[in-house]
């Protein structure tokens, strides 16, 4: 029997900090999960409905109690409505994040955000071209303004289709049209999902699920894609950059500032402030050797991808990082920020700052960022963090940081391949690389922390499957040491040869969770190059430790785009075996891909390999038997 800490996380820093926090009598997410057990079975199965005030209702899965809600909805309808609303919430989160970036772009174009600028003009021109905006002989800011306005329009429904959905292969677009799931507008699909799931609207569980796919596609090829593309335009398209990961990135002798959340609009300004000469001088005057900015979760990934900023940890590390006692200030924006953080900070000296007008947290000081005040506010906050340095008590940074390389945007990958995807296609055709797998998603205390990500990734690369990753999965794999040039030692002979020749690791960090769209773009580019559909390619996706509604939307747009996707934790759908069967097998006939659910990464690796080898066989390529 392993220790409690070993059962909770595979990471050394996690285990040591869990022990410390228990000694400090600080409760963590794992303790709260234990306190919640047993969790409500109706809810776990998707069989409880709180949608209207004739309810709340629940359906008895054993068949003797009520089989219909007050309105008459049966298990299939209740599960479908609940799942639909999860997708809507996830799509809304990503897309609202995208909208915030477009607003900054518009402000930059209008000259009202002096500290922000257009960093990647080439990308601006390329994306503007896709939107049919004239780019020749025009001012950059004028183009940016027009692009911002065109993108804002996509949130409504005026055109009836999303521009960037044109990036998918023709075959897939036709399939979407035929199935009635081509996304029309970003906000429209989410809004329609809320409408359909209102009592007395859509009570066809199949049509509800189909709209769920359309809703998710409005995120993947809409809101999230806009978020990623505009972030690149504003802050630069990532290039391979070395960085350091795990709790060891905190420094004993420097002012430690941690950014947590998702939106680079805030973290980029904090970074600028941390690098300014007067702030560095102030820090030295206060006895610190410097200012050490580190990231958590996806806003950390945004900085890691573009600037090589060190990464302190993923979702389940966010409480533990405060437990080091070494963090002067944590600055958060939105999404995945546990409301427990504000209660942990007073046990140490950490100042907690919330920055978004739409995200408040107990125990945090609210200092709202807007494009016009961001630079000055960031400097003010960094100053306060520096002033907090002498309040630091004993700190505990028990491990050395692990090096990794991040920054693999599609542009960077194509660049590493020599400007065309052909070498990758050749390697796949020759069977040196069997296929590619996106390992993405969150952490969830129900799965041993990082175990799902790391074991799955390890099994895939040792069998010559290239792994691309994002979000918390990407941080897990970086901590596990899979992202250095010498990490090819973990790869099978074929993958080792190809990555070795290109000088890249066998696991490519593609960014934050909105950056999952980079994987879509790459998949579409490969399919277009081969003139096949995405679902014909030897690809797969996995979310081994997912927890959030955003992950449900991501998984759904992966599948709707033609990528077989294996989930770790069971989604709340087992209340309807009709829906389980549709999502895990029936969908193949509709959109050429399905979900699978497999919590054990050893078994998930087999499922994925079997799937990819079958796709290889269908393409007439060499295939392995399982």
């Amino acid at each position, binding site marked *: 029997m392993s220790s409690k800490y070993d059962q909770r996380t*595979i990471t050394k820093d996690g285990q040591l900090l869990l022990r410390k926090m228990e000694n400090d009598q600080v409760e963590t997410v794992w303790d709260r999960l234990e306190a919640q057990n*047993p969790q409500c079975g109706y809810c776990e199965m998707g069989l409880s409905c709180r949608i209207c005030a004739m309810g709340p209702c629940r359906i008895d899965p054993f068949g003797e109690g009520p089989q219909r809600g007050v309105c008459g909805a049966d298990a299939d309808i209740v599960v479908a409505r609940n799942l639909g609303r999860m997708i809507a919430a996830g799509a809304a989160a990503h897309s609202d994040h995208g909208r915030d970036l477009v607003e900054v772009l518009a402000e930059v174009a209008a000259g009202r955000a002096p500290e922000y600028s257009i960093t990647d003009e080439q990308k601006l021109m390329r994306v503007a071209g896709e939107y049919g905006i004239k780019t020749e002989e025009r001012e950059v800011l004028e183009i940016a303004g027009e692009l911002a306005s065109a993108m804002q329009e996509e949130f409504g429904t005026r055109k009836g289709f999303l521009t960037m959905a044109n990036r998918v292969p023709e075959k897939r677009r036709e399939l979407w049209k035929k199935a009635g799931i081509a996304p029309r507008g970003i906000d429209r699909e989410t809004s329609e999902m809320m409408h359909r799931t209102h009592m007395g609207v859509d009570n066809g569980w199949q049509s509800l699920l189909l709209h769920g796919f359309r809703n998710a596609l409005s995120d993947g090829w809409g809101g999230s894609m806009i978020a990623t593309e505009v972030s690149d335009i504003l802050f630069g398209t990532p290039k391979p950059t070395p960085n350091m990961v795990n709790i060891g990135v905190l420094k004993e002798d420097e002012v430690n500032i941690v950014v947590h959340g998702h939106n680079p609009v805030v973290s980029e300004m904090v970074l600028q402030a941390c690098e300014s000469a007067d702030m560095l001088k102030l820090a030295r005057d206060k006895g610190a050797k410097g200012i050490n900015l580190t990231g958590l979760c996806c806003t950390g990934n945004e900085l890691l991808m573009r600037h090589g900023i060190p990464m302190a940890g993923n979702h389940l590390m966010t409480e533990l990082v405060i437990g080091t006692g070494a963090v002067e200030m944590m600055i958060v924006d939105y999404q995945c920020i546990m409301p427990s953080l504000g209660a942990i900070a007073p046990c140490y000296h950490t100042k907690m700052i919330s920055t978004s007008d739409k995200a408040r947290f107990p125990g945090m000081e609210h200092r709202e960022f807007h494009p016009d005040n961001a630079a000055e506010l960031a400097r003010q906050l960094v100053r306060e963090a520096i002033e907090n340095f002498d309040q630091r008590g004993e700190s505990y940074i028990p491990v050395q940081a692990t090096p990794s390389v991040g920054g693999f945007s599609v542009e960077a990958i194509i660049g590493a391949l020599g400007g065309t995807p052909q070498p990758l296609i050749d390697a796949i055709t020759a069977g040196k690389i069997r296929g590619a797998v996106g390992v993405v998603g969150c952490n969830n205390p129900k799965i041993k922390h990082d175990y799902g990500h790391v074991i799955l990734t390890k099994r895939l690369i040792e069998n010559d499957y290239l792994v691309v990753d994002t979000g918390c999965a990407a941080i897990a794999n970086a901590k596990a040491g899979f992202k250095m040039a010498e990490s090819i030692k973990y790869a099978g002979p074929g993958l080792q040869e190809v990555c070795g020749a290109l000088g890249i690791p066998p696991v490519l960090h593609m960014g934050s969770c909105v950056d999952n769209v980079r994987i879509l773009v790459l998949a579409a580019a490969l399919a277009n190059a081969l003139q096949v559909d995405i679902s014909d390619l030897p690809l797969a996706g996995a979310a081994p430790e997912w927890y959030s509604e955003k992950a449900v939307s991501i998984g759904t747009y992966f599948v709707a785009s033609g990528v077989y996707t294996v989930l770790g934790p069971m989604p709340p759908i087992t209340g309807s075996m009709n829906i389980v069967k549709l999502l895990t097998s029936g969908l193949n006939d509709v959109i050429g891909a399905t979900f699978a659910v497999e*919590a054990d990464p050893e078994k998930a690796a087999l499922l994925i390999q079997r799937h990819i080898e079958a796709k290889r066989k269908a393409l007439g390529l060499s295939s392995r038997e399982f």
Partner: protein
Amino acid sequence: MREVQVHPERCVGCMQCMLACATAHSQTKKLYTAADESPLPKPRIHVGAGLHNEGFPNRCHHCDPAPCMLACLPGAIFRDPDTGTVLIDPDLCINCASCAMACPFGVLRYHQDWVAPPEKIIAQKCDNCISRQQIGLVPACVEVCKTGALTFEESDAALKRKTHEVACTIASGLEQQSLIPPGVELLNLAKKQRLEMQNRQNL
């Protein structure tokens, strides 16, 4: 005589029995107002988490002979002759916890209660909702349990039903059938798997 029967394999861990029990033993008998009472009403049925975090409703068995009754020093625990229910007299109870030491099921709790003198802490446990039964209602926990994990029936009837169910799963000539629906089995499987993974050796 009808009694509360527990069928743990049916418990989904929703804890609605706990809420209903606390409400039934409140002064106002309504959830929304009960949550505002002082002292706060507390449940006498408790849902525990099993090995795979499955729910288990734990309540007083009203044993006969009852170890708690034998252990009770002031003689506060007695049996209602009509229903066989083991009850506690709040005025006689001295909060010595001898009953908890004797109880093999861990169903006793100690707290203030509106039926006891103010500020006095007393032992509390399931009373079979005697006052509800007197007005023709079934015990509150049974009323809200929609999966049939708690039923109010003769024990013979419950056991006979179970005999039939078991017989159906092993009837000759048929594929062995499970008593548990496939969706519930899927969920249980996922829970067991998580636990097994937790205990695996780390890298």
